[in-house]
């Protein structure tokens, strides 16, 4: 592999853009959420403040090497997804390292971060982490099923597993988007996205409104900073993935920002409307509606 | 033919008697009676053997079948009776 420093630079730049856009997007969403609830909400720069504060905490503790590695795995997962994802259509520089692996790589690389995080949190020895992980993993398995069906459906539809080629196939008008050419697959995938983001009604994993339980319970300071960094990146990358697969991709940053915002907004919107599911409810729910949609998507091929 | 006819009549008589005796032996409550009845059946059989020109068989049946066998039966009966008493 010849090291292409230009590309490395653009990749790093892209990562920074994505990170900041992710932070901003989360601030906007929380603001909207607060307004809907009749609160004032946070200032738009609050995520940056939090992040800096976390990174700057001086006294830190660790529970062992795996505890240490947990956030690293998590962030590697997020960054890795970004690395293997073509960000802008038609641009070699913004396509990162997506030519080393295809859609299946992306699907499986999602697990990388999760698994590491689960292990790290496990070593923390905090029972609430365990509970959070077990819920998270349980829910995650079922989220992925409709997603997989959708991906298979796409792969068959476009006869490729390369994301770039899938995007390419959707060019030339809004009616070429997968959203219209394969609505069932899109619907299945969009429902599974709700779970992937872990917003209400699927937010039992972290249970944010109560005492801080969930996988990151034991993490704080720098570790928490790393996790939040990852969250910001991951949100954007996932929306970009959906954008690429179902909504025609983006050929410039502006288009990317609009589309990713809308996709992200969809999950927040649902979250504001529906109350939280218990874990077995969400598992069953994902195996009902989205799964059926996914199967229809495949059967219609 | 006369002799043959006589034999037949005798055989029928012996046969009917044997069958009756064997039923008696099977259904009698008294064991010693039953044993004697069987001994007599055996004896009748040996007469029948004589009628059928089988003197060797007749001798054997008389000595073993109706004699010794009956004797052994009585040994057993005796033994049982003594234990009952």
């Amino acid at each position: 592999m010849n090291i292409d420093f230009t590309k490395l630079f653009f990749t790093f730049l892209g990562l920074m853009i994505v990170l900041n856009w992710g932070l901003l997007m989360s601030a906007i969403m929380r603001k909207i959420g607060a307004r809907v609830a009749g609160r004032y909400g946070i200032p738009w720069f609050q995520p940056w403040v939090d992040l800096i504060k976390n990174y700057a905490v001086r006294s830190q503790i660790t529970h062992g090497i795996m505890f240490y590695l947990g956030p690293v795995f998590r962030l590697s997962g997020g960054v890795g997804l970004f690395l293997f994802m073509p960000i802008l259509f038609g641009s070699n520089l913004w396509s990162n390292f997506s030519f080393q692996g295809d859609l299946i790589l992306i699907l499986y690389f999602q697990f990388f971060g999760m698994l590491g995080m689960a292990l790290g949190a496990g070593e923390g020895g905090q029972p609430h982490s365990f509970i959070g992980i077990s819920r998270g993993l349980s829910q995650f398995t079922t989220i992925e099923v409709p997603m997989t069906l959708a991906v298979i459906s796409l792969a068959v539809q476009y006869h490729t597993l390369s994301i770039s080629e899938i995007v390419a196939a959707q060019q030339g008008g809004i009616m070429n988007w997968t959203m219209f050419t394969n609505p069932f697959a899109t619907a299945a995938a969009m429902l599974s996205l709700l779970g992937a983001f872990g917003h209400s009604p699927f937010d039992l994993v972290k249970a944010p409104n109560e005492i801080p339980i969930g996988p990151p319970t034991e993490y704080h300071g720098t570790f928490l900073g790393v996790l939040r960094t990852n969250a910001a990146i991951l949100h954007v990358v996932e929306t970009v993935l959906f954008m690429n697969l179902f909504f025609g991709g983006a050929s410039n940053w502006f288009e990317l920002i609009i589309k990713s915002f809308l996709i992200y907004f969809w999950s927040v919107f649902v979250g504001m409307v529906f109350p939280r599911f218990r874990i077995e409810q969400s598992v069953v729910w994902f195996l009902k509606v989205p799964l059926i949609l996914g199967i229809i998507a495949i059967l219609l091929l | 033919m006369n002799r043959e006819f006589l034999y037949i009549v005798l055989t029928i008589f012996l046969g009917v008697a044997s069958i009756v005796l064997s039923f008696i032996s099977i259904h009698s409550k008294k064991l010693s009676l039953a044993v004697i009845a069987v001994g007599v059946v055996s004896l009748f059989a040996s007469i029948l053997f004589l009628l059928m020109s089988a003197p060797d068989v007749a001798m054997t049946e008389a000595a073993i079948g109706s004699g010794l066998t009956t004797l052994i039966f009585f040994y057993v009966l005796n033994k049982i009776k003594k234990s009952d008493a």
Partner: protein
Amino acid sequence: MINTEYFTLGHISLLLGFILIIVGFWGILTQKNIVKIILAFSIADAGINILIVSLGYVIGKTAPIIDGSVVQKAGIDVSDSIVDPVPQALVLTSIVIGFGVTALMLAYAMKLFTAKKTLHINKFNDLKW
């Protein structure tokens, strides 16, 4: 009238043999007293012996002994004058065997009786299934 073809000494004794066997079996299968069962075996034995001998019977022929006064020297063909000697030989064996077996059964009966003080066959079912 009686069909003479079926009214020979052989037929009648054969029939008697069969009847005695069946009666013996009846006793064997229905009597509960072990001595009675053994008696029934004796009856069946007698029946078989009668049956065998009657199979060897030839109408009006003499015993298979070559009488010295009638026959002057060895080697004469007597096949026209005697009954079949083979079944008689078999029956001799059968009688002796029957005696041996009966003696053994009776020995068993005595042993069984000493073991349980009864001769009821239903009581000796300690081996089953």
